[in-house]
Every structure is written in structure tokens, then in C-alpha cells.
């Protein structure tokens, strides 16, 4: 539960910032860092990695490049490090303590909510949309699911 104003502390002490590396996420990162800095809060940056999907048999008989699980892991970890590194760098510049983690899950919204709970976060800052962009939906699907199921405040930015 967020702190009562009478209790004297800032409203949020530990903000969770999930990112998927999209442009909206990158802009949302600035909001997350700025808010944390203004409140003297710390950040946890999170990237949810989709699980490896084994390739389906190719019935056409043509040659298809197939990524092995090891190659997949290497590629997604490198990507995660890069996007999380960008957040921890901005946070460091702003003097905001920031931890980064990546988690494998087929359900980003669930991993986000679980992480917030496990880490004791009291708010989430996230983009309105992710990689699929704004053209398809009024509000991104994972953002919508986080909002529906979350019991801490969520700041949605564009």
C-alpha cells in the first residue's frame, strides 16, 4: 500500500521499470529516472525475455536457418544487457540507485507483477505500448494486462 501523506515519507520508494527496448520504453525510461530522482527513490529495471520456441518442422523442404537454444540465449541476453545498460547508465547519471534484471517468461505482464511483488516495489512506470507500436491498439496488450491485475500504482507514459 502506498504511504499515507501523514507518515512523512515520499509516496514511492522503489519503482519498477519494465522495458522491451522499444522507442516508447526508451522514452519511458527518462520518466522513470526523473520520477525516481525527484522522490529520492530507487529503480529496478526489468526486461522480460520470451522463452525459446523450438523451430517447427519445415514442410516445404526448403532450407531455413534455425537458431539453436544456445544461440537464442546468447542473442537475447546480449539484447537485454544493452537495453538494461542504457537504463542503468541514465539512472547513474541522475544519481538514482538502479538494479537491472532480466527474466524469461512467456507472460510479460505476469513477470512484471511478480517481480514488483518479490522486490517490494511500490509503483511501476511503463510505456503505453511496446515493440508492436501504437498503430494496432489504443493501449498495448501487456500494459493493459499489468493495469488490470496490478495492485500498486502504474504510471503509463507515451
Amino acid at each position, binding site marked *: 500500500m*502506498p*504511504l*499515507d*501523506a*501523514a507518515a512523512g515519507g*515520499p*509516496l*514511492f520508494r522503489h519503482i519498477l521499470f519494465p522495458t522491451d527496448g522499444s522507442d516508447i520504453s526508451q522514452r519511458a525510461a*527518462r*520518466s522513470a*529516472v*526523473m*520520477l525516481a*530522482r*525527484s*522522490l529520492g527513490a530507487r529503480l529496478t529495471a526489468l526486461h522480460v525475455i520470451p522463452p525459446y520456441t523450438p523451430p517447427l518442422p519445415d514442410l516445404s523442404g526448403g532450407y531455413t536457418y534455425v537458431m539453436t537454444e544456445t544461440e537464442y540465449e546468447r542473442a537475447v541476453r546480449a539484447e537485454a544487457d544493452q537495453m538494461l545498460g542504457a537504463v542503468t547508465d541514465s539512472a547513474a547519471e541522475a544519481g538514482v540507485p538502479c538494479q537491472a534484471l532480466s527474466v524469461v517468461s512467456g507472460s510479460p505482464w505476469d513477470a512484471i507483477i511478480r517481480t514488483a511483488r518479490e522486490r517490494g516495489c511500490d*509503483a511501476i512506470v511503463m510505456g*503505453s505500448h511496446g515493440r508492436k507500436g501504437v498503430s494496432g491498439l*489504443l*493501449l498495448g496488450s501487456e500494459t*493493459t494486462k499489468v*493495469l*488490470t491485475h*496490478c*495492485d*500498486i*500504482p*502504474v*504510471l*503509463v*507514459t*507515451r
Partner: protein
Amino acid sequence: MKAYKHILVPTDGTSLSLKAAKQAASLAKDLKAKVTAVYVIPPWTPPMTDEGSAIATLAFTEAQYRKDMEARASKALDKVAVAAAGSKVECDTLSIGGAQPWEGILKAARAKKCDLIVMASHGRGALRSLVLGSETTKVLSHSRTPVLVCR
């Protein structure tokens, strides 16, 4: 990027929206920001018969509707003003008529140049436990201003 300086706090008079308003006041205090509370009065729609003609004799006229709604608005806005005063935060109040709540909220945010909207996840609707409130969803879908959804 600058910190939020002017927070818009929509209220519909429900206890959930007051709870969000208290969090908004607390946040405004932490950020040294000011608050504008807004209550949106939806447009009057006369009851219609099946054939689409308005019922001629109405126990409840448009004027009575406005009067009743403005009284509710005052009451709801006062509660937000009290919460703001409790956090020593500057607060002004505004009621907007003739628009759906989500439209009125976004109109107020633009008119007052608010840089953050803080609102409850749900309003008066009955499906509280299942989904995100319909007006909150519409504000989120159409807002260019960031929205903090509180519960």
C-alpha cells in the same frame, strides 16, 4: 526532462477517486507541484421511449439534472481540496459539463497545461474486480499526458 509540476486529479465523488486524490496530494507535496481537481458532468440525456421520442412529462428536467450534478461536483471537488490542503499543496478546482468523463479530463489537462494525470483505476462502474474502469481506459488510450493509475 523536468519533474511533474502540475497534476490533474479527476474525481467522480467515489471513495476510490478520493483515495487516488490523496496519493496525488502526497505526490504533489514530494514534487513541490500543484494540483487541479476536475469533476466532469456528462451531458444530459432525456429518457427515450422505444420509438425514440423523448418522454413528454419528465419528473426530472435538465435544469434539475444540472443543479444536482453541480452539487455533487462541489462536494467531490471539496474533498480533493481538503486532501490537498492536508498535504499543504496548492489546489484549484474545476467542473466541466457536457462531455464524457474521459473527454472532459483530457480537455482540462490541456487547458490547465497539466503534465501528469493521477486517477483511480475504477469509477462508478460495477465490474470493479474484473477490468480497468471504462473512463480510465479511455483516458489512457487518448492521453498524450502521462497517467498514474492508482488503486
